[in-house]
């Protein structure tokens, strides 16, 4: 069996920001239960043995972990490609130099909009200026820079400005990712879902910029799932290419799969290899045998793998159904009615910010 190419290592759910589309669980857990440095080293080594090539260090905010540099060094010594996904808060010059010396290959910094007022409002914290300073530091130290921008109703019309910001910061890549509606994002969906008109306008701007700036930077447009005809090929297939380890050691096929009613697996109880190859969790939706119609008889079943199991579960209560985003799904009306509501010019719904505190702080 092929091992996973990529490991998403969620080092902590702690984060100074309050982004209302955060992909972390609604229950952020207890940081005293987080995996220790030694446990992460073992996870990285088991992942490398299993065939993993890339490790994405994420969170929450991975820089909140004091041992992030030694985790990077361990990954690097195992030959893994290391990618830090960060808000950049806490990326001081000294810390950045330590990370670079530890072998960190790539840095992705999130920004919330193209100017401080709007960005800080979305992040729930004054952070924009610190982020742009950190982005300049990343370039100064000779790292490649990717800016990640999550798009939604409140910043999609600023897409041109966002691309200009990426240019001004000399980003090598800018990832323009439309919000995915899980966890906090699903809770805030009515306030975040853009109208069809907004999406169409933004697509034109992005297409023009991608052509015009072709030599300057790579522009990655992550499609707005709800506005597509067919679902995304989530994770490149269930248990096919990627695995996630949560701050507390749970192993998942994707970061939101903890919501599904499947037996939990933990690195504290089993090896990554056993979990990847043999567990009920990783085999539940592997391949195409589990598929119901319309997926089973669909020509696209090896293209989009039936879409996203977590989205099917969140919207229909059954993880084995076709992703409702698909126009062929019997549940597609759930999506069309959400979009119809977003096309209304009704006032913006209230956003619920992601909570800042993990349980022990309450």
């Amino acid at each position: 069996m092929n091992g996973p190419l990529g490991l998403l290592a969620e080092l902590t759910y702690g984060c100074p920001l309050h982004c209302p589309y955060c992909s972390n669980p609604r229950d952020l857990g207890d940081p005293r239960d987080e995996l220790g440095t030694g446990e992460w080293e073992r996870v990285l080594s088991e992942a490398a043995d299993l065939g993993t090539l890339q490790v994405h260090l994420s969170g929450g905010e991975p820089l909140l972990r004091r041992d992030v540099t030694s985790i990077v060094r361990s990954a690097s010594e195992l030959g893994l490609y290391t990618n830090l996904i960060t808000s950049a808060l806490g990326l001081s010059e000294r810390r950045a130099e330590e990370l670079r010396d530890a072998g960190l290959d790539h840095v992705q910094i999130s920004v919330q909009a193209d100017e401080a007022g709007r960005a800080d409002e979305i992040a729930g914290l004054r952070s924009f200026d610190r982020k742009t300073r950190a982005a300049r530091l990343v370039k100064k130290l000779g790292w490649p820079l990717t800016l990640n921008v999550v798009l939604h109703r409140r910043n999609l019309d600023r897409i041109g400005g966002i691309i200009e910001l990426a240019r001004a910061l000399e980003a090598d890549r800018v990832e323009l990712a439309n919000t995915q509606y899980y966890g906090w994002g699903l809770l805030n969906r009515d306030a975040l879902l853009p109208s069809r008109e907004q999406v169409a306008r933004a697509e034109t701007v992005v297409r023009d910029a991608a052509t015009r700036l072709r030599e300057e930077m790579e522009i990655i447009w992550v499609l707005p799932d709800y506005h597509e005809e067919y679902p995304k090929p989530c994770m490149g297939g269930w248990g096919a290419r990627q695995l996630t380890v949560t701050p507390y050691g749970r192993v998942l096929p994707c970061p939101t799969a903890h919501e599904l009613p499947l037996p939990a697996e933990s690195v504290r109880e089993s090896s990554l290899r056993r979990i990847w190859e043999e567990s009920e969790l990783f085999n539940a939706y592997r391949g195409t045998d589990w598929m119901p119609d319309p997926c089973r008889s669909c020509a696209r079943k090896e293209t989009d793998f039936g879409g996203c199991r977590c989205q099917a579960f969140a919207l229909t209560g059954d993880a084995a159904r076709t992703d409702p985003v698909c126009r062929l799904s019997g549940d597609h009306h759930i999506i069309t009615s959400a979009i119809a509501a977003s096309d209304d010019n009704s006032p913006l719904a209230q956003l619920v910010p992601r909570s800042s505190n993990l349980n022990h702080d309450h």
Partner: protein
Amino acid sequence: MKGPRLAPHVRLAYDKSRGRQVLLAPESVTTLNDTGAAIARLCDGDHPVEAIVAELRERYSGVRAEDVESFLGKLSDLRCLKKGGS
């Protein structure tokens, strides 16, 4: 001398569990055959295209300059080469 160079976010690596050479980037893995890996290894900024072709000819027979150029074009389309390189 100035020649093509791998982009700063791209790393050439050996994928030992699958027995193949790969180019790693944050969100992609590009599999290379032996000649592809030999070319990628020479994308260090110090080898102009002609020098890459000459080096390959010492190791492999039937190396055609246009094949090397077209391979470099593919790497460039995949954003694996440094901007403004070659």
